[in-house]
């Protein structure tokens, strides 16, 4: 059925096939046919052991197809970039007992091998409505698409295999501790001076009868000393995972059948923990908020018995040393931006921006209007709007223009006192306007301030009886007749 393509041959029978610069038959897509899911796993394992699927994974499609004989096989289809890259895939496919084809939409011919260095062309094109028509030197077969296989779900279902060699020099680790064990492990890390970050991860309850979600402490340990590794691995309730790819980790001592580093399918924002011992993988769509374990260190204060009181001098003896406060440009990046000062000329821009703000920002933001401009204050740094001069919060009630630093660099509390403002005021320090004080009472919720009066029309609501309204059951006896106990018991009736 197949004919070898000769050197400098330009005409081919199968539609969608072309000749590349080297004279090799190549379609726009490559296709690998595998006999079963096990072969697919073997193919992925072999391919990812040396190369990355990163270039292919975006357009890679894995499908289960059905032949006329109702046998189900697996097809991988992907864009064929050039004949060299398809050669590599064909070699791996041969190793996994698969076949490689090239074509465009429906008709695919066998890709070149040692017997036909320029590839193959079909002697006769089959007219069929099937999704795939595959021409091979040993068979010609049509296939109908049965279902798609999601690569991520396939990887999640694969159980890791025992591999003690992964415990040597494991690199960055994730440690999962049961809720009760977490605090003890934190203190152990602090005592051992091991840097780590910790967060509390939650999963839905294991069964319908459990009320609380499953909580576990999740530690990220960049470098765990080798002496601590045996304890971490053998303590019940602690599970150590080796970070193998962004967003994926495998339990120490176990290895995933597929090289996950070469399969960039897991999001870096979340984490998938592949557990050994036949347990299902744990998935976190988003990493929990994490902080340094040092934050949990116990703090102790000295007795303070060695204090020696200094002799206080009268300030008048020292002479005049006061200096005015100035704003100096700062090289630091913008941080703690919690507000904006909006000049009157920028207020129309603010009106337009308000339509794009999220609901939480609108609910939590506050605004105060003054003749000099408007002060917009947010609860979180992420909520700022790109209008006006960004303000950084030095302390509650004191804002300074972002990119500027008050000099001398005195403590924010001292600065607040030096400004002489009443406690219920919010002070804004601007480079070209000096200090402006807004009374806290003038700060109103942004959502109250921005909405104009809306026209509305009343409608008559229709009353709906509560669907599940339950009345009290009230017992009512009905007439019993002349022989109320008839049929119950002869003995009872006689009485």
């Amino acid at each position, binding site marked *: 059925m197949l004919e070898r393509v000769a050197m400098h041959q330009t005409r081919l029978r199968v539609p969608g096939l072309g000749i590349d610069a080297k004279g090799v038959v190549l379609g726009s897509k490559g296709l690998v046919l595998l006999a079963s899911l096990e072969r697919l796993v073997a193919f992925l394992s072999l391919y990812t052991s040396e190369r990355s699927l990163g270039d292919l994974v975006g357009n890679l499609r894995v499908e289960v197809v059905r032949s006329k004989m109702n046998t189900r096989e697996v097809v991988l289809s992907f864009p064929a970039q050039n004949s060299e890259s398809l050669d590599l895939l064909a070699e791996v496919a041969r190793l996994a007992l698969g076949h490689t084809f090239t074509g465009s939409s429906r008709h695919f011919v066998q890709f070149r091998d040692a017997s036909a260095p320029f590839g193959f062309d079909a002697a006769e094109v089959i007219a069929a409505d099937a999704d795939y028509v595959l021409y091979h030197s040993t068979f010609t077969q049509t296939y109908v698409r049965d279902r798609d296989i999601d690569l991520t779900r396939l990887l999640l279902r694969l159980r890791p295999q025992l591999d003690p060699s992964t415990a040597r020099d494991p690199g960055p680790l994730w440690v999962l501790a049961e809720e009760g064990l977490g605090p003890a492990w934190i203190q152990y890390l602090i005592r051992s001076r091991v840097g780590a970050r910790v967060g509390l991860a939650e999963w839905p309850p294991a069964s*319908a*009868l459990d*009320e609380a979600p499953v909580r576990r402490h999740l530690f990220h340990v960049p470098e765990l000393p080798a002496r601590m590794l045996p304890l971490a691995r053998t303590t019940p309730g602690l599970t150590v995972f080796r970070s193998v790819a962004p967003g994926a980790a495998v339990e120490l001592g176990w290895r995933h059948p597929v090289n996950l580093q070469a399969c960039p399918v897991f999001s870096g924002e979340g984490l998938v923990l592949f557990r050994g011992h036949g347990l299902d993988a744990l998935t976190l769509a988003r990493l929990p908020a994490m902080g340094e374990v040092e934050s949990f260190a116990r703090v102790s204060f000295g007795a303070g018995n060695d204090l020696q009181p200094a002799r206080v001098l009268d300030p008048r003896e020292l002479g005049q040393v006061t200096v005015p406060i100035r704003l100096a440009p700062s090289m630091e990046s913008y941080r703690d931006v919690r507000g904006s000062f909006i000049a009157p000329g920028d207020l129309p821009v603010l009106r337009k921006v308000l339509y794009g703000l999220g609901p939480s920002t609108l609910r939590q933001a506050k605004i105060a209007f003054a003749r000099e401009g408007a002060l917009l204050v947010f609860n979180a740094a992420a909520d700022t709007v790109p209008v006006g001069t960004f303000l950084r919060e030095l302390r509650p009630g004191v804002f300074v223009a972002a990119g500027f630093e008050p000099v001398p660099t005195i403590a924010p509390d001292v600065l607040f006192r030096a400004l002489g403002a009443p406690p219920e005021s919010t002070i804004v320090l601007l480079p070209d306007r000096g200090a402006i004080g807004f009374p806290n009472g003038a700060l109103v919720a942004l959502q109250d301030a921005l909405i104009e009066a809306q026209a509305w029309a009343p409608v008559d609501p229709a009353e709906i009886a509560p669907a*599940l309204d*339950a*009345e*009290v*059951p*009230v*017992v*009512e*006896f*009905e*007439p*019993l*007749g002349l022989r*109320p*106990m*008839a*049929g*119950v*018991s002869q*003995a*009872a*009736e006689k*009485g």
Partner: protein
Amino acid sequence: MAGLGADVMRLWSGVFSPLVLGGRLAPMRPIGPSRARHIADAGAALAASERTWVDAMRVRRARPLGRVDHVEAPDVPQWLMVAALNDLLQSTNPKLDGMLTSRSGKLLELTMGTIGAVCAPASIREVISRHATFARLLELERVDTFVSWWAGSASFRGCAAPARMLAWKGLRRVGTRTDRTGMTQMCFGSRLDDARFLEALQRLLQLTPLTDLATAHREAPAFAWSRGSLGLILTHPGHTLASRALRSADPRAALAALHKDHPRVAGTPFEPAVRSVIDELAAYAGR
């Protein structure tokens, strides 16, 4: 058995359905243990289409204690319990006793026989299903009407006074008063032995352990650990359900009831489980 289907529907619409949904609950004629068995067998095969709304409400009763979306259909023991409830209510019917005959006591004894034929629930699903049906058992009420006139008075328990008694109100100086009587007081004022009636009610409650625990704060009949409730708390999910049931109404009163009955289980193999339930309830009730 020609009227068996009619009896099933009468018991369903008169007692079973109002027990779950509320509204007018009209017990049918006394059933007795023998006929109750036949009715229960036939009732367990009642078409699901007849039960749709009742099943929805039963799920609603079960949801506060466990996140279930489906409750098992009423089985033969549940139908037997409903038949027993029918006879228990009828035993308080004043029309049952004639001038010279006293049938209420005998009916109560037959009811005890019906209750005795029902075994304790064998699974958590059965426990939840029974509670879904009998959760409102102690909420049953009876409206009693008292009529007085210039020459006498009469009381009508569970039925309206006849129109002739209320005629010429002004001339005969007719006065009427209605009272609502709870399930546990229905025996008062009848020829029944109060203690025996409450014992029958207690045994009926003990057949549905979750209802028994959820109403442990009741004044009468006093809560007592039974084979069903002890078996329930010995399992992990049962322990959780029992704790939720005890907390559902009046945790402090329920705790007092458990303490009162604790000496009966002290020294038995059940004591650790009972102690665990009591400790958990005490922590919840803030004691």
